[in-house]
């Protein structure tokens, strides 16, 4: 059932990304997502960027018509929320490497905070196209993570892809687990690194979603359904899928290039 809630807080994170905080009593875990309904517009899957306490949050990047429209919706507006759905990030790593890109950082953030609270050592490699688009690097550094940054245009941190930073961190330090979320080409690279270093990897994946409860098949990914078996998968499992990083299904169910 949809619950109608008011956006209590609206934070402009970057020029193209907004966070909404809203009251939502359901227990939620890092990695899980909710379906967010903009009445009169679409309903979209959004990972929770804040999972603790009575007030949950999502962080939304402008990608198409609805997510662009979302950027201008004021606090106090009403939205529909259902969920949480899906699985969560493993709660037990001790030395954790996190590799995020773009809005993927928002998906990873609450899990990083939880890991830090339970005493883990967390190193984050966070990527963005440009400095102003960099998401949650301060939030995670403030929480106690060691944060390295990469931007495509070199306006902050290492110039180039975040995977390069990740590769260096893996060469330098020891990790028990790698978490990743971002563009699939990036995640494929991280998955390959995890394999090469023999470290368990976990990646949060996106596919088109409609029902979110494992019925309509919209989100099928190989033998899996992202809404039911994911969104967090072992990167080994992802690597074995011919679709991963290459194709997805459009709303009609046709396979299209990613």
């Amino acid at each position, binding site marked *: *059932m949809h619950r*109608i809630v008011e956006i209590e807080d609206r934070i402009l994170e970057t020029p193209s990304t907004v966070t909404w905080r809203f009251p939502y009593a359901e227990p939620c875990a890092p990695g899980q997502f909710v379906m967010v309904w903009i009445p009169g517009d679409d*309903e979209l899957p959004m990972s929770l960027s804040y999972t603790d306490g009575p007030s949950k949050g999502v962080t939304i990047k402008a990608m198409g018509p609805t997510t662009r429209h979302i950027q201008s919706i004021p606090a106090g507006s009403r939205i529909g929320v259902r969920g949480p759905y899906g699985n969560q990030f493993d709660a037990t790593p001790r030395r954790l490497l996190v590799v995020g890109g773009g809005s993927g950082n928002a998906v990873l953030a609450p899990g990083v905070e939880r890991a830090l609270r339970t005493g883990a050592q967390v190193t984050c490699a966070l990527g963005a196209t440009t400095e102003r688009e960099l998401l949650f690097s301060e939030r995670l550094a403030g929480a106690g993570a060691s944060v390295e940054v990469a931007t495509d245009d070199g306006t902050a941190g290492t110039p180039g892809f975040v995977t390069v930073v990740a590769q260096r961190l893996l060469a330098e330090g020891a990790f028990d687990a790698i978490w990743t979320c971002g563009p699939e080409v990036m995640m494929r690279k991280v998955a390959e690194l995890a394999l090469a270093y023999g470290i368990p990897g976990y990646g949060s994946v996106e596919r088109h979603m*409609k029902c979110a409860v494992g019925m*309509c098949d919209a989100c*099928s990914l*190989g*033998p899996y359904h992202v809404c*039911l078996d994911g969104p967090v998968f072992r990167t080994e499992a992802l690597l074995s899928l011919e679709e991963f990083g290459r194709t997805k299904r459009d709303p009609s*169910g046709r396979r299209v290039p990613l």
Partner: protein
Amino acid sequence: MAELSVEIAGIRLRNPLLLASGIWGESGQSLAGAWDAGAGGVITKSIGSEPRPGYPNPTVEEFGSWGMLNAMGLPNPGIAEYPREIAIARDRGALVIGSIFGGTAEEFARLAREMEATGVRALELNLSCPHAEGFGTEIGSTPQDVSDVVRAVVREVKVPVIAKITPNSADPAGLAVAAEEAGAKGISAINTVRGLAIDTTLARPVLAHGIGGLSGPAIKSVGLAAVWQIYRKVTIPIIGVGGISNGIDALEYVMAGARAVEIGTAVAHEGVRVLGRIVRELDDTLTERGVARLADLVGAAHRGFNVPTADARP
């Protein structure tokens, strides 16, 4: 171990549980997954002539654990793209039934030919989607419509044709009779029941399409009534659908007259392993009750039952 295999429309199913159309039915790997999980057969998403994205979200609203409303809008990749998905499922050994929908009898016939060519073992005609303007119920709501479509399809194909009937009718049995007379080899009953949900704080329908179809436990009794009435009017096998989520539910349908059943909404949250669970529950129940063959129970609730009159008592 009771004998669960049944024959419908000349096809032997290893057990009577079919994956319902529209559930895990867009991708071949999903169909194969349902087969691997224990289904006796899998029915594809209803496929049309063109790729169709379906309605915008929200497309689904759940009511507790007893009901679900949906208006997907018949999204499907279109008949040109779909054969590769069927091939994946068939390669894994799945017994596949192809569901199609169209706007006219001719369109149904054309789709039927193309669907048959994919190697499906039977066709299910969706004459009953309650929320797709111009398709579904709108084309399947009178005996004449049903008859026209079934006749046009039967002429074109060799595989058995199953007509899926709407409950949104004064007389579902009349629709089934029309299908049988037009050459259908089986009846599926029912599709979803027309429904709507409104959010009162927003003063608007919850589903983007407004009207949707109710499914799940809430409609089990509605599906049972349809199967019961159809059983008294036709001789072709009936496939019961609607609200089945355990072995006893499936048995209710069998006793009402169904030879096989379809599982839809019960897949939500649990995934297709629900199919394996229901097969096991059915087997356990029959074994416990000393019933050797499920097929012997088809229509059992009709035996010795007489409708009383309201004037039977002083």
